[in-house]
């Protein structure tokens, strides 16, 4: 072995130009693979935090009767999640669940928008009925409210995404403003800015829920705020508009908290029962204000007031939700967590009512895009990989042919074929180690530099490639190991042909060369 390495190193030094040519190929390959792996890693991480965990959620809990995993195509068919409280308990018990939120997901037609403006298209809006406080707790600081503010708890209102507002203006010439809001020039589109003086504005919407049944209600809802996501807003903005949960229930034809039957005090129930009882109603002892207050419990006005107050306090956390959103803990797989949750549902006999679907299936279009962009990057890296293999194969084959006399002489003297193969492998290994190592180091420096440079994009395609608005390739030990493995594989693959050429050199070739 020492002899092989000695000859290999000296040959590399002897044929400096060739060594540098092969070394440069390996350097460039290692550099771009490190950077590419960093970019893919950054994209995946960015996707995970900015898109999946920050916006879409790792897992969707949907009614079991919805057989289609794709949320958007199942939108109109979503129904109330039955036995919600038990479902919630099971989710709470899961160790791999980080946070969860129940929502009402649906779409509606913006009635008085669709009938106005220059477009005849019916303008629909995708709605997420949420408790804003709970939403903020789960998704943290992933959005900026650029105009107005989020509705308070119990307050009616809608938060519109900037992308949707821009679209509405482009199609219908209506500029949505939050209640009591005024035009903010920097948020106007160029077209809206051009028409600034004659801009038609609105600060409410009339929504008609699109549901599988015909029980939806038209609701007028004030626009409370305009928001945009801090990352990839242009990509997902159309799918995300937030409305208070009660209005969502009303609009989409679900039972609202106000509709819920409340537990009446015993006396009130008795009163109601007695009213319902026709015999009592027409009895000699009808219920009257005088005999009602004869009951000591009813004598206090305060008591009565408090009972009344109890009746009008709405519990918004009722069972009327059609979708659950779960984020799993860091490092947990949404697919595996979904399986565990589904198993737990089955054990609790809840699998007839709900099921958990990982985001790759529930947001198949987005995951498809992500997959396509990831594949594109992988193809790019593989092209480099392939080009590097071809260039190494070509250069080293030439080297093998140039050294026919030398290799043939070695074979005549008594070197086996594996000795000549070993020489080429050793030469390329040295080059890989030195130039590949430099390439990886340069790639690491480039990754750090790109992070410092803070390169931003507004292009939706690039946002997918970046995994957010900012290009943030990441350095991970797995990525570096992948590079090293690739670096080991490339020269080996590139060497297959040159080694075959070298092995085919016969002792007689050394003689005939002379």
């Amino acid at each position: 072995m020492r002899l092989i390495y000695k000859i290999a190193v000296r040959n590399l030094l002897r044929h400096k130009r060739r060594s540098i040519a092969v070394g440069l190929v390996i350097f460039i390959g290692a550099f771009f693979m490190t950077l590419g792996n960093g970019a893919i890693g950054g994209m995946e991480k960015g996707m995970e935090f900015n898109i999946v965990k920050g916006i879409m959620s790792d897992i969707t809990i949907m009614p079991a009767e919805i057989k289609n995993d794709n949320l958007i195509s199942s939108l109109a068919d979503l129904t109330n999640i039955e036995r919600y409280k038990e479902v919630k308990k099971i989710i709470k018990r899961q160790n791999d669940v980080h946070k969860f939120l129940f929502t009402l997901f649906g779409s509606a037609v913006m009635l008085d928008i669709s009938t106005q403006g220059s477009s005849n298209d019916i303008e629909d809006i995708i709605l997420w009925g949420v408790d804003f406080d709970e939403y903020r707790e789960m998704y943290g600081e992933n959005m900026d409210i650029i105009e107005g503010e989020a509705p308070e708890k119990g307050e009616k209102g809608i938060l519109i995404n900037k992308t949707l507002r821009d679209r509405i203006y482009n199609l219908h010439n209506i500029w949505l403003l939050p209640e009591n809001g005024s035009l903010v020039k920097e948020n106007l589109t160029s077209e809206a800015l051009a028409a600034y003086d004659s801009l038609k504005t609105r600060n409410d919407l009339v929504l008609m829920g699109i549901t599988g049944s015909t029980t939806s209600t038209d609701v007028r809802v004030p626009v409370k705020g305009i928001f945009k996501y801090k990352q990839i807003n242009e990509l997902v903005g159309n799918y995300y508009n937030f409305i208070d949960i009660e209005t969502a229930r009303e609009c989409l034809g679900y039972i609202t908290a106000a509709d819920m039957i409340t537990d009446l005090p015993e006396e009130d129930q008795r009163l109601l029962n007695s009213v319902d009882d026709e015999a009592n109603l027409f009895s000699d002892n009808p219920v009257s204000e005088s005999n009602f207050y004869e009951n000591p419990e009813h004598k206090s006005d305060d008591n009565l007031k408090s009972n009344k107050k109890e009746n009008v306090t709405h519990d918004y956390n009722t069972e009327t939700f059609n979708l659950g959103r779960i984020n799993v803990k860091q490092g947990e797989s949404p697919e595996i967590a979904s399986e565990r949750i589904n198993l737990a549902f089955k054990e609790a006999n809840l699998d007839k009512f709900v099921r958990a679907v990982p985001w790759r299936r529930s947001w198949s279009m987005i995951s498809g895009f992500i997959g396509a962009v990831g594949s594109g990057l992988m193809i790019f890296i593989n092209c480099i990989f392939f080009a590097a293999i071809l260039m190494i194969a070509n250069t080293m084959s030439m080297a093998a042919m140039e050294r026919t006399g030398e290799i043939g002489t070695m074979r005549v003297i008594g070197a086996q074929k594996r000795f000549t193969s070993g020489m080429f492998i050793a030469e390329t290994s040295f080059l890989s180690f030195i130039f590949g190592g430099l390439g990886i180091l340069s790639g690491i420096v480039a990754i750090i530099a790109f992070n410092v440079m803070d390169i931003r994009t507004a292009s939706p395609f690039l946002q997918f490639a970046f995994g957010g608005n900012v290009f943030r390739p990441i350095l991970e030990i797995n990525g570096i190991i992948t590079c090293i493995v690739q670096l080991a594989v490339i020269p080996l693959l590139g060497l297959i042909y040159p080694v075959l050429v070298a092995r085919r050199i016969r002792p007689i070739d050394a003689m005939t060369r002379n």
Partner: protein
Amino acid sequence: MCRIKVESVTKEYPLGKTIVHALRGVDLTVQTGDFMSVVGASGSGKTTLLNIIGCVDEATSGSVKIGDEEITEMKDKKLTDLRLYKIGFIFQTFNLIPVLNIRENVEFPLLLMKNLKRSEINKRTEKLIDQVGIKEFIKHRPSELSGGQRQRVAIARALVTNPEIVLADEPTANLDSETGNMILELMKELNIREKTTFIFSTHDPDVIKYASKVVRIKDGLISDQEA
């Protein structure tokens, strides 16, 4: 003792659309300790014969025995081992390994051998380098030596494994006559001292006088043998 026995060996190879008959049925016997010269004009088949005897080329037909071993049926691996352990080669163009220095070139075949101790390698290498008179160039690369010095290195390399046979294809062709004579004298000296069998090809009449046996070859056939 018979070291090499060549019987009815032919060698044909295609050259474009024609077949070249390099050897047309050669019979030859070489004894241990022979200092044999194969003589013939260019293209007569002498190099081809040496290549076949040296397990460097394959005969188209016929039989070649080295000792008791029939080499025409051997696989490449075994032939390579046979070349390493039993045959030494001296080339017309020296064929030293350019990236190795003189010492490394001489010890090269020993390093290919298995189970040889470093001390034994050093001993044999130094002895041969000393014998061929190139001790002062031990650290030099081949490119730093003259033709004669390089051929001495080649001789040392050929002999360092203590081969039974040394094949030399026109070993003096690239040397001036004075150096050529020195090389031949060195080979002869080693032949006498070590009892190594030497077979060398030449078409130079001055070289022939060193041979103990002369085999003349013409158009692929042995035309004459003389002791």
